[in-house]
């Protein structure tokens, strides 16, 4: 039989149910891989003791016939942006040095209540600001994939970002599933780069309470897994209304796995023409049209549609997200927690603490955000961006009168090598060109590993659905998954 760490969440759950192995055995098997793959730098904090303790509790629950959760006894990794009680929480930043929350985020609480077992806190771009996991104070994360040929051969590749540690950990089979957050593509783009499934639910589906805030109007938690079914299972365990988050929706959580076998017969799939950009690798175009025919083969109708404001999504995002971030990150001032660099005066302390505590990219975005909100520029930049955001959301509203879902590539390229694009912020931002529009409109979206490029690196396809229509998203993603027959095992894991 395949080794325990190769099992999907669904398979592991079945094995536990059938008594083939205990949760403790399952967790220990994953801890072994955690040790093996430490060089990926996927984790900031490893919590094997907690994992084993909670695995034992799960085994006891199971033996004593207690009611079990959706993910009882299954090991997972948690992006280090979620506050976890009594476990160091860093957001990948120097400025949160030594911060130990006395509280647990709502989403991780839901997962605990579902029986999931935390193996550790994963590495990420500092405050989730990045698309390559290169900005973490705790160093870059490596992609377990490496190129078979071409210029990137022999180089370490980025896993994408900001949920790079979570993506790497799932791809490398350190865990079957990991928690991420997605603000402009931070789950979907790394999923595409590492050949796994990454899903961002509708804004408001998961509580933001206890997640270190980057951009409040965009941040959403979501699962990174190796199969569509696992994503559906994990989202079910994460979601739910939370009165502590004013933007969390008071809707019941559907059974997300219920639609998986429904197929796409009769569904209308929109192919937005603005998503084919000049200079986009032909392999991306190729996989995109493959995806289209896979869906048509199963009885879906693909229609070309137009989202005219697509090209303005990225600049809009890079005004709104930094503006909100500049305010959200003002609380890191050295007074109550985290890093404190003392100074003669109060302002000295603020400036030194924040000057040393924030990395380059975070500093860059705070300064941009401060600028676009400042007197005289507010209307020209911030208000303008919010108006364009309205137009972008309206584009989607219009096409969703005609179609049920949209199919696009997830990212304009496969994983690139560590160090690339570092000197050119805007080039780095372009990674999220296909994921940001759905984020601005708060729509659910998913990336499915769909093939390999010429260098043998994974490429993802991207589905976007109507608000709260995650069920259509999963059933369609399942069809792509079946058709792609993607072998999600990295060819050569470091």
């Amino acid at each position, binding site marked *: 039989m395949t080794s325990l760490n190769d099992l999907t969440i669904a398979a592991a759950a079945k094995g536990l149910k059938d008594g083939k192995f205990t949760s403790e055995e399952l967790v220990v098997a994953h801890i072994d891989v955690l040790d093996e793959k430490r060089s990926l730098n996927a984790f900031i904090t490893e919590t094997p003791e907690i994992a084993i303790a909670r695995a034992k509790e799960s085994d006891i629950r199971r033996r004593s016939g207690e009611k079990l959760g959706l993910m009882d006894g299954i090991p997972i990794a948690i992006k280090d942006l979620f*506050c976890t009680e009594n476990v160091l929480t860093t957001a990948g930043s120097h400025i949160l040095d030594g911060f130990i929350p*006395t509280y647990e985020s709502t989403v991780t609480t839901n997962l605990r209540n579902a029986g999931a077992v935390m193996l550790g806190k994963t590495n990420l771009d500092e405050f989730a600001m990045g698309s390559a996991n290169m900005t973490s104070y705790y160093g870059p994360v490596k992609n377990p994939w490496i190129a078979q040929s071409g210029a990137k051969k022999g180089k370490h590749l980025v896993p994408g970002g900001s949920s790079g540690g979570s993506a790497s950990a799932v791809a490398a089979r350190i865990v079957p599933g990991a928690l991420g957050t997605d603000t402009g593509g931070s789950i979907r783009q790394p999923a595409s780069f590492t050949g796994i499934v990454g899903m961002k639910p509708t804004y408001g589906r998961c509580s933001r309470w206890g997640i270190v805030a980057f951009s409040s109007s965009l941040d959403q938690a979501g699962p990174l897994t190796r199969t569509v079914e696992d994503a559906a299972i994990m989202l079910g365990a994460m979601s739910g209304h939370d009165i502590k*988050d*004013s933007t969390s929706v008071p809707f019941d959580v559907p059974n997300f796995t219920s639609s998986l076998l429904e197929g796409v017969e009769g569904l209308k799939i929109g192919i937005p023409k603005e998503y084919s950009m000049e200079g986009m690798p032909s392999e991306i175009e190729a996989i995109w049209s493959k995806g289209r025919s896979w869906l048509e083969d199963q009885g879906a109708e693909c229609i070309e549609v137009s989202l005219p404001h697509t090209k303005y999504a990225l600049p809009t995002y890079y005004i709104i997200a930094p503006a909100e971030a500049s*305010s959200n990150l003002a609380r890191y*001032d050295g007074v109550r*927690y985290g890093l404190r660099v003392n100074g003669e005066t109060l302002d000295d302390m603020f400036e030194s603490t924040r000057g040393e505590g924030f990395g380059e990219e975070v500093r860059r975005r705070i300064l941009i955000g401060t600028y676009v*909100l400042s007197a005289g520029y507010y209307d020209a930049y911030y208000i303008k961006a919010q108006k364009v955001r309205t137009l972008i959301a309206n584009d989607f509203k219009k096409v969703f009168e005609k179609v049920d879902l949209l199919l696009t590539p997830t990212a304009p390229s496969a994983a690139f090598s560590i160090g690339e694009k570092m000197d050119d912020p805007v080039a780095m931002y372009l990674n999220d060109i296909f994921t940001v529009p759905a984020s601005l409109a708060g729509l659910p979206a998913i990336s499915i590993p769909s093939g390999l490029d010429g260098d043998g690196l994974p490429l993802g396809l991207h589905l976007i659905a109507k608000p709260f229509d995650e069920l259509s998203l999963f059933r369609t993603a399942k069809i792509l998954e079946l058709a792609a027959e993607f072998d999600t095992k990295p060819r050569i894991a470091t």
Partner: protein
Amino acid sequence: MSYIIEGDTGNWEIVIGLEVHAQISSQAKLFSGSATAFGADPNTQVSLIDAAMPGMLPVINEYCVTQAIKTGLGLKAKINLHSVFERKNYFYADLPQGYQISQFANPIVGEGIVLLDMPDGNTREIGIERLHMEQDAGKSMHDQDPRLSFIDLNRSGVALMEIVSKPDLRSSEEAGLFVRKLRAILRYLGTCDGNMEEGSMRADVNVSVRPVGSKEFLTRTETKNVNSIRFITQVIDVESLRQVKAYEEGKEVIQETRQFDASQGQTRAMRSKEFSHDYRYFPDPDLLPVILTIDEIDSIRKNLPELPDDKKNRFIKELGLSSYDASVLVADKEIADFFEQVAEKCNSKIAANWITGNLFGALKKANLPITNSPVSVDALIELLGLIEDDIISGRIAKDVFEEMFESGITAGEIVKKKGLEQITNVGEIESIVDNILTLNPDQVDDFKGGNEKAIGWFVGQVMKATGGKANPKLVNDILRSKLVE
């Protein structure tokens, strides 16, 4: 009535606008479930939200919104059906989030009015620009340590109303009347306890001056967080004089934030930069707009209590009080309540006179609030009853009141104990009168000779003989009848 500063170059008038921060009376904070009670141990009324821990989110306390609407209605103001919480971004030691959640472009309450009751009995209308909700910051303490300032976040997140007046005030006296009247309205409504000692109310005082007759506004200064009515008037007086002096010496007045130094009785420019900058307001993405319905507002309106102005008018129209007495009695809700209870049982004019006269005097001397007056409502009712029933004379009643106030003994007991009842027995008075007439034949002749006034002298004699207890009317009648015999 406009107040004039006579300078060397001419006469100047003062233009004053106040931004009053009033703490909303509520159990819990504006965006968290921690307590608001005054005087708790440091940081014991602080939630993870109030301390701005990572990932914490605000949720609106609906009661605070209701309180703000109530206050808006009390100020006869427009309630906005759509208002928005925004972030006011600045760094300070006791501002954990690095921003204050406030309202900016879309406040919950728009323009309203406050009526000042002027000493001459007239009223003057002062405009309200707006009222918005916001959270308070924590408290910094600077005297505990030579190197450090200490931070207590108990106040962090407490709900405030910022009530902004139009620049309609023209003297420190008017400003004092305005704050008193505003506080009375808030206390009638129960939306703020108005307790300035505990910081429930404080004002930012905006002052500018201009030559009398000029209509333009010159540069104003804002003196922050002035926490008593006395200080507010002081600030206006010293700041306006400082500005006139500056102009007359050909200097400029710079637009700046100042603070009041009570010990020096001076204002001075704030050194710290944190107030002099760009707040970068933007709608708080963690919160949704506050959308209200007409019905919601009407149901609040229906349950408003009677407010000072209406009470005053009722006292004048229905109880026949003077405008002055009425405004004195309504100025404080407790006093108004005390008066109304007494007036229910007794003649309201007499009740008003006794309360504004003897009772206020005694309370002032003992410096007690009416809420723990040694003379209770019932005690006063009993005393006034004794006067109405001619059991004691008005003059004696004053002495009785004094003793009631000292000892707390009831009027009835005092009167009995000291035998102060009026003599209304005709025979008794006649014999005293006869006696006095026979003893003073000259005065009798004087009266009979046509000197009507002499009767007053006789009355005095009778009163002296009876220790003031004889019923004056009887004494008069009996004297007349006997003298004209």
